[in-house]
Every structure is written in C-alpha cells, then in structure tokens.
C-alpha cells in the first residue's frame, strides 16, 4: 500500500498525462514554439528575462519546481525536504536535498551533488554578475554530503528555505561544462551559455542568439517514453499580434507566448479555429504607486526623498481613497487586458491563502462617494473646477512606461479623476529608461519625480516574504543608497517593519498567511499604492497540441516533456 502511494505520488509529481504515456519518445514529430521576444542566451544565471528562462527550461532543470496550481513538486530531487521528514533542520537553519537515483546528463555522465554545489558557487561568485543572486540570499554554505545529498546552511533561521534550486530561474548546471566559466569568465563562455548540457527533455542542436533555437529530444532523458516530440524550433522575433496570428490564424506554429494583444483583436483571431487562447493568473498586479514625499522640482536634490518633506496632498488619506474609488477597474480590465486581467484591490492577489478581502470596496467605481469624501475633507472646487485647500491644488503628474495599454489606462483614469475635480498631467517614458537604473536620468521609477506612477510588479514562486519586505523604511530609494530600493511610495511605518521581522521568523503556513494579509491590508488602507488589475499570462496553443498546462508559478515550458501531438 505504501509502495503504491509512493509510486502514485511520483507519477503525479512528474505530471504524467495518461494519454501521453501511451506514446513513445519522438512519436509526435516536430514542435514549433514562437516567442516574439527572442531568446538571447540559455543560461538563466546570466539573464533574468522570461524568454531566456523559458528557453533554458527546455534543457536545464531545478531540484524542485511549482506545478500549475502553485504547489511545489520535486523535480531532480527525490522529495521536498520539510521539518517533518527531517529534510529541514528543527532550527530552520539548514535544508538537505537528495537527488533522484540514476540521474544522467544529456552527455551520459551522472548528475552528482558536486554539480549542485558548483552551481551555487557559480552564482554566488561576486564578480560573475549572476542575476539570480537574490535566490541565494542568506546562504552561508552549500556542501555535498555524499554523491546524491546536498546540504544548504543559512546564516539565520529561514522559515521558507525553498529559494535556491527551486523553480526554473535556478536550475542545475553541469560542473564539467562550466568549471572554467566562474566569476569574470562567466560572460565569455559563449559556447557554454548558448548550449548548456542539461537533464531536461531536449538538447540544443543549434543556437542563433536573438533568433532561433533548434533542439532535439534528449536521448538520455530519464523517462524512456518522453519527450513525445522528436525535435523543436524555438523561434523569436516579431510582435505579440503576429505571434498570435501564427498560431490562431495561419497555424504555422503550435505555441505562442505572452500575447499582450488588444482583447478584441485576439478574440477575432481566435475565430480562425486553428488554436485556442489560454490564460492563467499569478501574482502580477498593475498598480499605481503613490508618492508620499514631495516631488516638487524646487526642492532640487531633495525632491522625492524623506528629507524633502511629505507630499502636499497625497498624504491626506481622504485624497488617496477618493482617487482609488473614482477608478472603474472592471472597465480598465475589459479595455486593456480582456482574458488577461481582472480587477483587484490587493497588492498580493494570489496564492489564495494570502488574499485579503478587507479592501474590496474599490472593486466598484463610485464617483459620487469619491466627491463626497473630498468635500468632507475640505477640498473644494476652485474657479477652474479643480479642488483645492489652503492654496494647494489637486494637480497630479502621473507617469508610466510607454506601452499602448498603459496609455489607454492613463487616459481613462485622467478622465475619471477630472470628474472628481482632480487635474492630471500624463507622462510616459521608454521602458528601458523608466525601469533602467541610470543615475543621471531623472525619469527612472526609483527617482519617482512625479506624484503617481504605474507599473506591474510580482513575486516569483509562491512565497511573498521578500516581496512584502519591499515596503520597509530601509528600502526607500534615496541619493544615499544611489536610488536603489523597492519602496517606491516612500512608505515608512514602524508597525509594518515589525510585521516584516515577524514574518521572517514565522514558519507555520497559516500564521504566515495571516501576517501577509495584515501587511497587505496595511499597505492598502494607508494608501501607499492603488492596485488596479490582477494580470494574467496569455498564451495560445494549436488545437493539435496536447498536454499544455499554463503555469504562472514557473516556466511555461515546465512540463514540455508531456506535450504531444493529437492524432
């Protein structure tokens, strides 16, 4: 009985589709995948871009990853270590992973714990510029206990120790291949970065950077019947609309990713009958960040910093609440996102156990009530119809990155705010500048030389601890820390900081969920940000492609071994 349960568990873990199990390796022929942003490199440690991580997920695999429901499943590891099964130490300062038996690389050599230790050292090397360094935070030591066992020791208790080697952003590299690529040599290993040897279902035949990758089935893949496809093309280039067309209308491709296309256009294409639009929701939220500090240009160096003083009117809770109430989020979702967006009032919109219902007031637009709130707070319309109090006019500079959907959203919000007597000036900045860290540019989202700014943020995996830590006082960007920091609203609340510390030492999931909810509500009710849209991922698959499970918690290619062609 116990053996049977274990076997069933293993089967579920591998997400074996019952249909695909009948087919053998390579029976489905050729698979065409289209990513309109082309993959640049196949080493996720040197590129954080989703396109690159998804492409490398076809080849490289982590110890454990998330399934389509956000549950952690062992991948190269035998099982998920927990305190109960002894894999995580009682004091939460170490975790011990054990590799599956008999794992081999695509070149036929065995996978050992030395490869895992090497990968950790590879990324943690100071001079390598590793992009997944945050995943190795607080790790003091990674050691191999035997051929298949790896022990990771932390500096301090880690209630959620599953960051390193969990998820497609942190797969295992082969030591033999990458041993000369550590530190400053990392970027120069073009051959390795373009053709990593992995344990995944496919091996790289040809890599054309920013263009096309050709792959074929890994002859040494651990499941003899998989992958069902003998070869695949991972094509890049073009734009989202043409990618959607290639799957839905012309049928030239089997799978297209990230179809941020006008919802009406996408619906029209889906009538082509060649494929299906699929969507799923993760943790991404499009939100307005509210500047709690004064961005007045007259302040010079001190603008948008704590020293520059509080914002003239956005520090008034009534104003922030009115601004939020005036927005019709359902309409924004319908106009800009279609199947890929739904209204939200929380900055943590998923997983379900973390989602608060305390802020749902904002789901329904109520201009009359917003006006009433402003009236009661003493903001009265001036001669030009703009509300003012003590000589301060409600005039907002609202900035975001250049993107058709964002500019539509800006225009709608501007109109609604004008209905409550708030004047809005719109500004959009090229994404590479807005999200770039150029110290000399005044237009970065960290400097926040505006009253309101809009963008999307999210957290990887399912644990929001690091994400919630973004709004600590110490995370406020300022000239002292070179404007590095995630606390864009310049929100500073000692109670919130205390909750961050409490979360860091709480292990039980239910308690963690309660704390996260409390933090989310605090941020919402203090108006540090105004969430708008819970954003999903939209992809398209050809009707003949089976086994696709759109996964927002991990790479979209996570279960590509199970994909197959319908008869």
């Amino acid at each position, binding site marked *: 009985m116990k053996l049977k349960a274990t076997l069933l568990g293993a089967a579920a873990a591998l997400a074996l589709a019952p249909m695909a199990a009948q087919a053998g390796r390579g029976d489905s022929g050729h698979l065409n995948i289209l990513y309109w942003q082309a993959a640049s490199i196949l080493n996720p440690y040197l590129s954080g871009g989703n396109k690159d991580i998804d492409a490398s997920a076809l080849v490289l695999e982590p110890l454990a990853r998330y399934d389509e429901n956000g549950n952690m499943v062992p991948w190269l590891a035998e099982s998920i270590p927990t305190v109960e099964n002894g894999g995580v130490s009682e004091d939460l300062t170490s975790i011990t992973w054990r590799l599956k038996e008999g794992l081999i690389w695509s070149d036929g050599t065995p996978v050992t714990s030395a490869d895992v230790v090497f990968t950790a050292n590879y990324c943690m090397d100071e001079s390598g510029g590793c992009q997944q360094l945050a995943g190795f935070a607080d790790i003091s030591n990674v050691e191999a206990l035997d051929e298949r066992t790896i022990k990771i020791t932390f500096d301090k208790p880690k209630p959620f120790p599953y960051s390193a080697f969990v998820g497609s952003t942190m797969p295992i590299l082969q030591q033999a291949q990458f041993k000369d690529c550590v530190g400053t040599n990392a970027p120069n290993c073009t051959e390795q970065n373009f053709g990593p040897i992995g344990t995944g279902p496919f091996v790289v035949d040809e890599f054309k950077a920013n263009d096309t990758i050709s792959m074929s089935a890994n002859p040494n893949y651990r499941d003899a019947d998989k992958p069902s496809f003998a070869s695949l093309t991972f094509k890049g280039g073009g734009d989202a609309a043409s990618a959607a067309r290639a799957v839905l209308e012309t049928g030239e491709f089997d799978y297209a990713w990230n179809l941020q296309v006008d919802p009406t256009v996408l619906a029209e294409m889906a009538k082509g009958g060649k494929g299906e639009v699929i969507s799923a929701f993760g943790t991404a939220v499009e939100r307005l960040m509210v500047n709690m500090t004064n961005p007045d240009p007259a302040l010079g160096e001190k603008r948008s910093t704590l020293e520059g003083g509080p914002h003239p009117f956005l520090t008034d809770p009534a104003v922030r609440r009115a601004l939020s109430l005036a927005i019709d989020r359902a309409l924004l979702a319908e106009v800009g996102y279609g199947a890929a967006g739904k209204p939200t009032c929380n900055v943590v919109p998923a997983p379900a156990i973390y989602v608060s219902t305390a802020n749902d007031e904002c789901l329904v637009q109520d201009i009359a009530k917003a006006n009433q709130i402003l009236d009661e707070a003493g903001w009265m319309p001036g001669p030009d119809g703009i509300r003012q109090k003590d000589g301060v006019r409600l005039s907002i500079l609202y900035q975001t990155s250049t993107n058709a959907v964002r500019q539509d959203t800006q225009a709608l919000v501007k109109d609604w705010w004008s209905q409550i007597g708030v004047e809005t000036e719109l500004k959009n900045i090229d994404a590479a500048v807005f999200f770039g*860290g150029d110290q000399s540019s005044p237009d970065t989202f960290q400097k926040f030389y505006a009253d309101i700014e809009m963008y999307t943020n999210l957290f990887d995996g399912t644990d929001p601890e690091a994400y919630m830590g973004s709004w600590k006082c110490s995370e406020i960007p300022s000239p002292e820390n070179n404007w590095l920091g995630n606390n864009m609203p310049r929100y500073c609340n000692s109670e919130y900081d205390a909750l961050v510390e409490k979360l860091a030492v709480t292990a039980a999931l239910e308690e963690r969920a309660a704390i996260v909810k409390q933090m989310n509500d605090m941020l919402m009710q203090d108006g540090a940000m105004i969430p708008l849209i819970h954003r999903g991922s939209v992809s398209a698959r050809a009707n003949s492609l089976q086994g696709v499970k759109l996964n927002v918690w991990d790479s979209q290619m996570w279960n590509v071994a199970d994909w197959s062609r319908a008869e």
Partner: protein
Amino acid sequence: MLNYTIRRLLFAIPVLLFISFIIFLILDLAPSDPTGNLPLTIPPEVREKIRQSLGLGEPMYWRYLMWCKQFFINEPLNIWDQWMGTCSFNCEDRLRVVSYVTRSPVVDLIVERLPQTLWVVGMSYVVGILIAIPIGVISAYRQYSWFDQAGTFVSMVGFSVPPFFSGVLVIVIFSVQLGWFPSIYDTTLKVVDWDTFVLQLKQMVLPVMVLALQTTAQISRFMRASMLDNLNMDYVRTARAKGMKERTVLLVHVLRNSLIPVVTVIALGVPSVFGGAIITEQVFKVNGIGQLLIIGIQGGDAPLVQTLTFIFAVLIVLANLIADILYGILDPRIRYD
C-alpha cells in the same frame, strides 16, 4: 583617379574615428540601461552587480578606448586567426567586443545574420531596380499616358504606405486567406536540394514584395525624371535627325546618359541593404541585421549598437566614395585629378 581614391580613403580615417566617438557619446549619454528590461523581481543591489560585471563601473574614456582596441585590433586579429587557423598574440586572452545581452562576440552575431539580410533585403533591392528601370523608361517616353499615370500611382503608394501596414496586409491576404506563402521566415532552412530551394523562394516572396515596392517607387521616379531631362536634349534631336531607329535613340543614347545619376542613387542605397530593414524584418521575423539593431537599442546593449552603427558608417562612407568613382567612370567629362 588612383591618387584621388587614396586621398579620399586616408581622409575617411579621421572622419570614421570621429563618428565612432560621437556614436559612443550618444549611446553613453542616453539614459538607457542594460538591466532596465530585466524583471522587477531582480533586486536593485543585484542589478548594480550586473552593471559592474558588464564593465559599466569604468570611466567613459576608458570604455571607449577599450572598444577601439577590441574593434580595431582584436577583431581583425581574430578574423585573421580564423582564416589562417593560427593563434597569434596569445589569442586565448584576447577580448572581443561582447554583447551585454547575449554575452557573445558581436561580430559573430552580425556574421550569423548577414545571410538572411542579404538574401531578403539584397534581393528586394535587385528586384526593385529591375522593375523600376523599365517603368521609369516607359513612363518618361510615354509621358502622361495611362502607363505613366499607373506608374505614378504605384510609386505614390510605395512611398506613402509604411511596411508595417503593407507587410501585415500581404500576410493577411497571402498567408491567412490564401495560404500560399508562410508569414514567418525560417532562418534555419538550408538550401540543399530543389524542394528546399522552393521553400526558400516561397518564404522570401512576401518580404521581398513589401521591400521591393519601396525601392521601385523611389528608383522609378529618379529614372523617369532623368529620362525626361535627356529626352529634350539637342543630341537626341540630332540622333533622330541622323535617321537612327527610335529604339537605338532611346536605349543607347538616352538610357545610358540618364543612368548616370540613377547609378549614383543606387550605389548610395547599397549600405542600407546591409543595414537591413528594421520594420519589415520584424513583421516577417526575418531576424536579420535590422532586427539585431532594434533589439540592441531596446535592451540598452551598447557594444552591439555601437559596433553595428559604426559598420553602417563605414559602409556609407565607402558607398559615397564608390558612387563618386563610378560617376567619373560613367561620365568621361568628370575628372577628379
């Protein structure tokens, strides 16, 4: 002529060095950041480390000199070594111009993309010229006829319809509705037999069509204007008075003389072939030089953009020189010495 050519080539060296410095300054002063397009889940401290690892911590003049050394010394040495199969001046440690995004040598990326760019953009240039010259000749000879009017109309369409519209239009007609041609260019296709050759032709039809329309529009106008200038010349009347056949007058006397300015225009357009076609390449996913450039710009990939734009600058300077020399060869009245 030889003296003139050598003088021009020598003068080009300081010009190109100056251009490379200006390009570098523009890229460096632009508020673009190679880590700007990374997901927000990567924390700012890690971004700073990435920037350091890309060498962005060095002072600007140092980075420019490094690029100069890598591009003018290391890259030619590398090409030499690859041809000769040697390893001169310890080639193991030689730093090449490396892209920030792909972490691979920029020159290799460019070489990898040249075939599809030359096939598609080059072919469209040739096709465009082959169509444009007869249209220009007939339009001028039969000025204000229905053919001339139709030619004018097509040129105006070619001039005014942008490729992001005409490209999508031909895809909707020929790929979606009729299903004759693929809408996506397969860069991995290797022409080895008749079938793959047909496939290659098929996938080239749509992008070449879109690009050739533009070339045709431009060159046929030049050709027509030049022909009209010459048709009214005295020597044409003389030739006719001598009793020459109309065909000889037109194709030997007028056409040859009219081609002189057109050849200059064609020569000056050749660098743009190597520059690729940014929009059309995106529409059909040809992924040539143009797409490489636009990805580099979007990703803040300074070494890639710097190298590509500099190569364009070299090609433009050379094309100007070639055009001037051709002019001298075609028109014996022009002498530079």
